């Protein structure tokens, strides 16, 4: 009998932890009970993005979106929806203000504003199925590259698209590929940086869990373009599900000769291995990461030499992050013109943001570059809970800074955000209301970087510690006003002298909160007052 219904069950890490699998088991049980398991196809997909509402299921062909499912809801879905064709009203999404009930996933505002390139397959296909990936144009990009394009053509296409690195620095991807291609030396390597360590960012995890083949295919294309035969994916040990799905995907790709010798029958070999990290934030820095792949302590090295000249095992190495690779196949298939038509003048394409903090719809969103912060917070994010007032958004994790309310109309692209003293970074976006103390926020991030400082260069190791000591004194009301200048001085010195990108950006959360919320710092020092009511709690 043909399958009548397709149930897309989100099997992202977030939905699984909210009980997605117990719902699935109950669902299977109910289907068996009514003897209709042959009519229904349950597809476990990657992250749908709206983690706040998990576990979620989308029922096709109707496209009905059910949220916050508990095992006992399986009975209703089977008996009402699947058997009688009646939608289960109480499990549908309700709009915050109008209380309007929304039935279709595509009509939920959270999804409407989004444009999915990187996350195109997440929540749509079974991440462990090569057939489903191929069904969504998977491996047509690699086929095109290997049969129709010269390596130079591939690089030109990527260059023309205007794609820039999504890991933080925003370096033009095509240029990086060209540098590695032109670098002398026989052996070359391709690395995928999947050591997503920023607290609050989880887009790379979602791509790896939801669409692992897209990264594998893109890395193979990159290998062809730069002239490398060996690739490594460096995944952090904290992502066991991503590692499992990648392993399974790599195995299947080898079985179908999409990795290994003479791929697609062409004169091109490419091998891919996974390297599992071991819990060190600094390994997200490219030189540190490469040392870790070599089996060493993951401390950074000075640049130059850049990885494109001397990287892994001293050979020219291309290193890009997961989200960057996830764009590649679409650019090859749809062309650089299509890609560069999305976004702003200098920031092309889309960016995935991880929305978190004081916001109604937490989760992953992919929007064209240049979408304003206001749209992110109020339209996609659904505003702040309990109608709290927006105070600022912290963007770019511990390497970034904050955007205060007065700049809420800022378009989120590399240049505009940089002007405000922060970075897009990996795309963590934490929304804060009046309940957040900016001194405490700066302290939180600095505690993190201080704890994760690898200790190789003194400006990071000692500098961040000194800054943290001052912040601790401020939050206890024991600092002097002059120390604010010292804080800025220290921060600027660390930015200039630290060995690696993580050290250089470590003072950013402090410098940026000091820039926009100096009055709060002064209140702590002069009046021993914390307007958010976070510090000085013990005295109450």
């Amino acid at each position, binding site marked *: 009998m043909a399958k009548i219904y397709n149930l897309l069950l989100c099997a992202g890490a977030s939905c699984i932890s909210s009980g997605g699998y117990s719902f699935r088991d109950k669902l299977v049980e109910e289907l068996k009970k009514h003897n209709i398991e042959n009519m229904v196809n349950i597809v476990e997909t990657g992250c749908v993005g709206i983690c706040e509402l998990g576990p979620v299921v989308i029922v096709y062909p109707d496209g009905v979106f059910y949220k916050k499912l508990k095992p006992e809801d399986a009975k209703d879905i089977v008996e009402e929806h699947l058997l009688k064709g009646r939608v289960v009203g109480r499990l549908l999404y309700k709009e915050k203000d109008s209380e309007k009930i929304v039935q279709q996933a595509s009509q939920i505002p959270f999804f409407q504003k989004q444009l999915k390139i990187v996350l195109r397959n997440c929540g749509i296909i079974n991440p462990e199925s090569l057939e489903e990936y191929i069904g969504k144009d998977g491996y047509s990009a690699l086929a095109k590259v290997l049969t129709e394009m010269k390596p130079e053509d591939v690089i030109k296409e990527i260059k023309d698209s205007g794609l820039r690195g999504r890991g933080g620095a925003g370096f033009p991807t095509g240029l990086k590929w060209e540098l590695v291609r032109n670098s002398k030396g026989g052996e070359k390597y391709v690395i995928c940086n999947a050591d997503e360590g920023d607290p609050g960012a989880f887009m790379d995890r979602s791509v790896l869990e939801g669409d692992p083949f897209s990264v594998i295919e893109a890395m193979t294309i990159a290998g062809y373009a730069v002239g490398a035969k060996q690739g490594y994916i460096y995944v952090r040990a904290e992502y066991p599900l991503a590692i499992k799905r990648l392993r399974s995907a790599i195995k299947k790709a080898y079985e179908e000769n999409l990795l290994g010798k003479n791929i697609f029958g062409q004169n091109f070999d490419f091998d891919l291995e996974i390297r599992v990290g071991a819990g060190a934030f600094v390994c997200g820095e490219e030189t540190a990461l490469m040392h870790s792949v070599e*089996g060493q302590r993951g401390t950074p090295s000075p640049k130059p030499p850049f990885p494109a000249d001397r990287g892994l095992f001293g050979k020219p190495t291309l290193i890009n992050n997961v989200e960057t690779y996830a764009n590649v196949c679409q650019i090859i298939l749809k062309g650089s013109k299509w890609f560069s038509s999305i976004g702003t003048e200098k920031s092309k394409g889309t960016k995935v943001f991880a929305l978190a903090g004081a916001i109604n719809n937490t989760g992953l969103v992919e929007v064209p570059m240049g979408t304003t912060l206001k749209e992110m917070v109020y339209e996609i994010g659904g505003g702040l809970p309990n109608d709290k007032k927006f105070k600022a958004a912290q963007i770019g994790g511990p390497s970034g800074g904050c955007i205060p309310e007065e700049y809420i109309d800022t378009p989120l692209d590399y240049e505009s955000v940089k002007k405000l003293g922060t970075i897009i970074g990996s795309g963590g976006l934490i929304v804060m209301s009046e309940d957040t103390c900016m001194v405490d926020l700066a302290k939180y991030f600095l505690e993190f970087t201080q704890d994760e400082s690898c200790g190789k260069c003194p400006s990071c190791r000692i500098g961040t510690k000194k800054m943290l000591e001052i912040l601790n004194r401020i939050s206890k009301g024991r600092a002097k006003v002059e120390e604010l200048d010292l804080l800025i001085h220290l921060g600027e010195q660390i930015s200039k002298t630290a060995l690696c990108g993580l050290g250089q950006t470590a003072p950013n959360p402090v410098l940026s909160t000091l820039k926009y919320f100096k009055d709060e710092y002064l209140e702590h020092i002069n009046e021993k007052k914390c307007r958010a009511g976070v510090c000085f709690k013990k005295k109450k």
Partner: protein
Amino acid sequence: MKLKKEELLEQLKEEIKKHPKGQKDLIEVLHKTQELFGYIPQEAISLISKELGVYRSVIYGVITFYHFFTLQPPSKYNVKVCLGTACYVKGADKILNTLKRELNVELEQTTEDGLFKIQGARCLGACGLAPVMMVDEEVYGKLTEDKVIQIINEYREKASEEVK
């Protein structure tokens, strides 16, 4: 049935043989080691050093750099001795020394039988009961040297009953 250390080492040796000599796959091997033992024992370091041809000091350096790896076996019970000011005044050092002597370990070490690991805590916030220690979530106050030994023995009995 839990495998003996020697058998696990034998398994590890087979595992290492799948990897090339040198430091390149060291972190992979360490992951495997920790998977097998639950931590990285000294004997394993010696074995890895011999099989891969990497100095023990280098291996030690890598292990201590990454948060994920631990040199201490996981313990069944976690003992936290408060070393805050109030407890210190009331003789926390004596409590700590008694524990060290009784269990024959230093701070942050796990006992031979895998039952206890002792850690120092800054302040457990039970200063009125000083000196204080915690075993997992349970707080024990007004400790004396005898009382500490008595508590440890209670947990030893509890553990041996569970085995039965």
